[in-house]
């Protein structure tokens, strides 16, 4: 029964949450806090804040942790499966169709037409990260970190792994 509830609790946010994992957080909260009462609002907020200090997708971190708390290892598996599987299956099906007609001029036109929109979505996402940074550490640090990471990543083509690790060290030393 608990596994079925876990499945439902994460299946619903996974199928109606548009806009990537972070967008489905309020939906997860609705199920986990309001419907099933596995966590209180405070605990959920705390968990979300802690999850955000770790790398990686947030929706699966929340699903894995809550599933584990509620139903052990199998609970974690069920919650993760419910989060990931439905949209992934739809994706494989649709892209399979698309690949079949890869050489059709209409599909080519589609690829071309959506590209500026995708660029804008990514650009807006980038803008949000800059705003967060500006509000958190101020203009000077934001401009410095942006300039430095731009040079390292784009001009000198350093692998992002090193740039990210460097930023973590810089933050620990100078932004604490």
């Amino acid at each position: 029964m608990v596994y079925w509830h876990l499945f439902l609790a994460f299946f619903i946010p996974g199928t109606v949450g548009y806009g990537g994992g972070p967008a489905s957080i309020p939906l997860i909260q609705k199920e986990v806090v309001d419907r099933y009462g596995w966590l209180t609002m405070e605990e959920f907020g705390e968990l979300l804040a802690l999850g955000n200090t770790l790398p990686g997708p947030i929706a699966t971190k929340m699903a894995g942790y809550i599933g584990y708390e509620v139903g052990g290892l199998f609970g974690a598996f069920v919650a993760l499966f419910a989060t990931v599987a439905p949209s992934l299956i739809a994706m494989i099906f649709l892209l399979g169709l698309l690949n079949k007609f890869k050489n059709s001029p209409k599909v080519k036109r589609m690829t071309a037409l959506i590209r500026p929109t995708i660029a804008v979505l990514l650009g807006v996402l980038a803008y949000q990260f800059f705003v967060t940074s500006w509000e958190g550490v101020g203009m000077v640090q934001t401009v410095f970190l942006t300039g430095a990471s731009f040079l390292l990543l784009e001009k000198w083509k350093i692998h992002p792994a090193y740039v990210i690790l460097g930023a973590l060290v810089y933050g620990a030393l100078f932004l604490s």
Partner: protein
Amino acid sequence: MDLKTHRDLFVGFFRAGMLGYGGGPASIPLIHKEVVQIYKWMTDEEFNDILALGNTLPGPIVTKMAGYIGYRVAGVLGLINAIVATVLPTVILMIALIGFLASFRDSPVVQGMTKAIAPVVGVMLLALAYSFFKHSQQGLGWSVSIVLGVVSLIAYHFLHVHPALLIGGLIVYALFGKEYVSAEKTGSAGEKGDQGTVGRQGEDKQKDISV
């Protein structure tokens, strides 16, 4: 089963997951780097289509991309491998470190680390956005790309039209709309071909010089 491919899949998605701060979308440029630049499993065009379609579907974006790319590269096992590499390490970290994190959350060191990451992620996303726009300009020309870009920006950022609707609408229009673009399309394809040969000649020249 090709062990090397599976190792590459795991390493690629492990790196992208473990280095992505700020939720799944922050990992998109990292996945692009691994999939298109390092391992060359697909072209920019294919990555573009996957990202676009992923955005029209519900659910977390990174696992959709990992799962699909894993599937394309190495079948069902590849799918499982890529998902596990994306999700499992961070979930294990979360379960193992939650108590530890709770006691250190307010520590200025941890907060400083988190803050320093945001501009780096911003730069990576911006670079990816630029590369999409540049490709778009090559395919559609400046004017169409800019118009589409500006319209998308207004619709998404200022009018808050849902991205799924925006992309979904463009896909439907492209697939079922009138085919007035077809003539233009062949024109631009020819142009692109010309550019290709020019580029290649340029490379040959360079080679000659270096030889």
